[in-house]
């Protein structure tokens, strides 16, 4: 795992919206485990500071009114994020951040209300899909255990879109059982094809519903698999 000094640390912009509430947790995880201080970027900014990557944390941006992530997708800073990504910049969207990425059309598909109509908070197992992104290559054959906490995390994409995702190796994480088999029983929210996280075509934009920042210490739920995901995020642009 990587560990940085203040001078040598990568510059990661933490995009903060009113209603974001996992920003502090992301900060804590990156600082404690990698020595990286995230650079807060407020939603009203029209430009990004000099950064190597951006991170969109979880929460309820703008109260998640209209649709989760929809209002945030139209905020000034997202214009800057879009142009950053279009030039090959790396981005990680966690939970609400994933919703914002799909609403901004930086990732395909949409995130809809859970099949159970309830908010779900629990640890789930994730199988890693096949593809060429650093996420898929680095995390490879593992089954990851991460917590989810969302009311609108049911990934949806039409049949054609799903085929394209598979063809292009964009399916990064699928809800699975402890052995890594994705089946209906292991699907917490009714996501199409058990999809929990996807990457962009160039593999540098990652969106996922589970919270890697919450599984970074054995004391907190017994899993450190989130560290591996965050570590891979760093590899995606370093």
């Amino acid at each position: 795992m990587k560990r940085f000094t203040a001078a040598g640390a990568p510059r990661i912009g933490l995009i903060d919206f009113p209603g974001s509430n996992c920003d502090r947790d992301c900060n804590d995880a990156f600082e404690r485990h990698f020595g990286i201080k995230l650079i807060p970027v407020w939603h009203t900014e029209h430009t990004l500071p000099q950064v190597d990557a951006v991170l969109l944390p979880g929460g309820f941006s703008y109260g998640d009114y209209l649709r989760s992530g929809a209002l945030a997708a139209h905020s000034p800073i997202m214009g800057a994020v879009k142009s950053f990504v279009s030039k090959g910049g790396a981005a990680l969207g966690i939970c609400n951040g994933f919703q914002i990425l799909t609403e901004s059309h930086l990732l395909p598909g949409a995130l809809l209300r859970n099949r159970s109509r309830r908010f779900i908070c629990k640890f789930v197992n994730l199988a890693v899909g096949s593809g060429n992104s650093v996420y898929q290559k680095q995390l490879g054959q593992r089954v990851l255990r991460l917590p989810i906490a969302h009311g609108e995390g049911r990934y949806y994409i039409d049949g054609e879109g799903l085929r394209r995702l598979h063809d292009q190796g964009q399916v990064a994480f699928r809800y699975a059982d402890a052995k890594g088999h994705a089946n209906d029983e292991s699907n917490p929210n009714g996501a199409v094809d058990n999809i929990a996280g996807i990457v962009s075509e160039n593999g540098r934009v990652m969106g996922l519903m589970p919270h890697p920042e919450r599984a970074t210490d054995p004391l907190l739920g017994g899993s450190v698999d989130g560290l591996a995901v965050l570590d891979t995020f760093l590899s995606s642009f370093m």
Partner: protein
Amino acid sequence: MALLCWIPFCLRLCEGSDLKMTTTFKLPDTAQMTRPPQIDETPGPAFTALMRKHKLTGEEYARVKDILGRIPTMAELGIFSAMWSEHCSYKSSRVHLKRFPTESPDVVVGPGENAGVVRLSGKLCLAFKMESHNHPSYIEPYQGAATGVGGILRDVFCMGARPIANLNALRFGLRSHQRTPHLVENVVKGIGDYGNCVGVPTVAGNVSFDASYNGNCLVNAMTVGVIHEDRIFKGYATGQGNLVVYLGSATGRDGIHGASMASGSFATSENSERSTVQVGDPFTEKLLLEATLDVLDKGLVVGLQDMGAAGLTSSSFEMAGRAGNGLYMDLDHVPVRTTAMTAYELLLSESQERMLMVIEPHKWDELRAVLDKWQLACTVIGVVTDTGRVQIHHKGLLEVDVPVDPMTDLAPKYERPMRPRVKDAADPEVFNQKVTAAALVRGPEALLLAALRDTGDKESIYSQYDQHIGTQTVHGPDVQGAAALWVRSEWADPSEPYLGVLTAATCNERYNRLDAYLGGAHAVLKAARTIAAAGGRPLAITDCLNYGNPEVPEVMADFSAGVDGISLACRELSVPVVSGNVSLYNETDGESIAPTPMIGMVGKIQDVRKSPTAVVSESASLYLLYPLKVGPQFGGSLAAKLLDQSLHAGQAPEINWHAEREGMDFLRLIIGNGQVSACRDVGDGGVITTAAKMVAKSGLGLQLDLASTELGRYSDLAQYFGEISGAYLICFNSGDESKALQSAATLRYNAVVKVGQVVDSSKISWGPWSMPLKVCHHAFTSALS
């Protein structure tokens, strides 16, 4: 697209503010102002109805006139009604609450403020409080529960504390009651949606079902926050000439008379109360939270108070009262959501997510900058004066002119008549035998299944709560004991890098129905045992005293006995009461709820890594720590409830305080030594129910035999299903057993005895009985389905 981008802001501004922003406030000459008409006090049906609506007695009304020296205006009548309501004035309970012990070396802020504060480590303190939202939740469960969470969060963060954990304690009617499923579904959703959005984890809770709540559910919400000892903020309106600033959502007609509603009983025919329900907006709450902590951190305000029950009225009187000052406010400046609101409505509205602040005029610009960042509307609506009066202007009239101190000092205070309930005089042993006989008829296996179903896993509830946000949750609701949080703070003593906060909320209403005095003590003890079983030392409690109609002498006697029982336990365990709330009139059609003094407790563990869970995950020997010379009881027991036996007969478990203290100290010692892998206090349904719950989700079987303990002297059923105070089941870490047992050798009032084995088998067996593990697991996990 530019226009589209800003739609959210436009929406917010439209509803949020009239955009009138003043930096100065000229105090007009109130002596020159015209007063509105006074109320018509001609005796007759109209006046009687007016008094009834405002829940003021003839004597109280006479006192209002004495204080004012004249007949009140309509707005003033509303103010007195709200401020003197049971909810705001504690008029029936105040004389009793004085008896609580409130001091200890850990206490930094005791009762009387928005929340109590205790020292945790170094300069790091915990601010916490529990509050009821029973009546609103019964009427509109989703919004009622949600706004209950919102209110308690604000009480904690307006002191400057950042909330780190929410808890809730819920009581519903029988599951077969027609309204129960609807209430459970929506209360849970309301709590979840609010806390999840604000971003505070819900880490522990407590729920049970009892016929006495059929017409009155209880929703008690608790928040724990962290705060620096030197930065605790209190809501004073100091400094004449300082500005009174309104912050947050605009005012609508919602919730008018909420305070007096919480001070009356229900009749099933009354549905019109619906109009008083407030609607919560957790998004605005999150903004308020961040903005409040920001302005307090920057020292931009001198006073700050949540507009909770009785809204603008209580916040202004409380702030002025504490500072010994007066306030002048102009309601024409209050942001409104709907037009043509009267002064009466503006003053009594309980619209949510609003705060009242007092600031020095020169800090206005800096304050605006912070609030603008958080998109919060704020408006200067008044000024601090030296008059000792709250004076309120609206549309050219001086609607309110009330002296502050007499309003609080002369608030009614009742020593209501009390008549202790007649206790069942029969020998408790007779009842114990009756329950034993009934259990044999039902069959011990069936009884265990019923017990597991009744007290089983609440996953369908807690999975709707975000338990992990904040990344401090070491033990959440899934491990079934006290919640454990790993608090990482630069304010803590650096020698405690794994500092842990333990917290739990609980109350056994059946013990309370049987004996309100012992029941109060048991509620505190249960919380303390839960904390001790997780390795912690209790620091302080908050309470929600939920009782029925205080005008019924038996209910008032229960209340008084409950206060004494809690006080007794607090003294015996050296745990002070630092905050709390009273909810009376929990009755429908003359039926009061079982006395329910809910206790919320916080404790400390120095090294949270050592905190065991209340469930086992691997094969181990099972030990029982139990108090000597104390027998099991069926009075108020889970078995009595499940076997349809009287809930008014028999005796609640007796308490040996020496044994309780010694047991808890012993647990803290061996847990601190890192010797314990699992520990759970023996509760509802006795030793077998507790043991079965420890293994139910582990996939492991259990063999339990109490013959070698003192309990072995009692009948098989009493040993296993009888209830006892001060007992725990313990699993040691492998290799640590002998060392832990050596420590046990010095115990004087307790014994530690090996009573069984958690094994890789497909059975749960106890005494002469056994059940397939699968069946137990199913009963346990289908608890709420």
